[in-house]
């Protein structure tokens, strides 16, 4: 039950093509990540909506294959 950071990044990019993504493997175990994601698609959305967009991009991996992904989302220039 682990995921490569590159896979996470690719899945997010597919859903949010303009996203700037910085992923940290917090424990080096491929299971606990943090991600900072900036995308214009988040404009006008609440934090809950923004995080849901990322979870949707991960197509059910979150809470399954991926145990922990600490999210910080924002819009460009914010």
């Amino acid at each position, binding site marked *: 039950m682990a995921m490569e950071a590159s896979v996470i990044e690719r899945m997010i990019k597919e859903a949010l093509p303009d996203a700037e993504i910085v992923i940290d493997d917090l424990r080096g175990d491929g299971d606990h990540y943090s991600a900072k994601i900036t995308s214009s698609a988040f404009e006008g959305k609440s*934090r*809950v909506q923004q*995080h*849901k967009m990322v*979870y949707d991009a991960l197509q*059910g991996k979150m*809470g399954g294959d991926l145990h922990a992904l600490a999210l*910080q989302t924002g819009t460009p220039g914010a």
Partner: protein
Amino acid sequence: MSDNPVFDRIKSEVSDTDVVLFMKGTPMFPQCGFSAAVVGALTQMEVKFKGINVLEDGEIREGIKAFSEWPTIPQLYVKGEFVGGCDIIKEMYEAGELQKMFDDKGVTYAA
């Protein structure tokens, strides 16, 4: 009433109590770092909340994820509304937004 009994239970929980935290473990003994972080913020603010231990209730554990359309635990509800998971609550707490939300919704807290 929906045709899903678990959703009905969740609905009555979040409408009966102003602040409800679906978590792993109990407020006294959180069994997950993310749940502990949210308990820590709420405790710092001295806000009264009810912790629901999803580890003791498999129906609620899966049901709450579908109900909120949110894949992870913890989940914080205030006045029946889903506020967020650990990252959002931490961010809101640090930015003073959690305090503002409690003010706006008329939830009392000390600090």
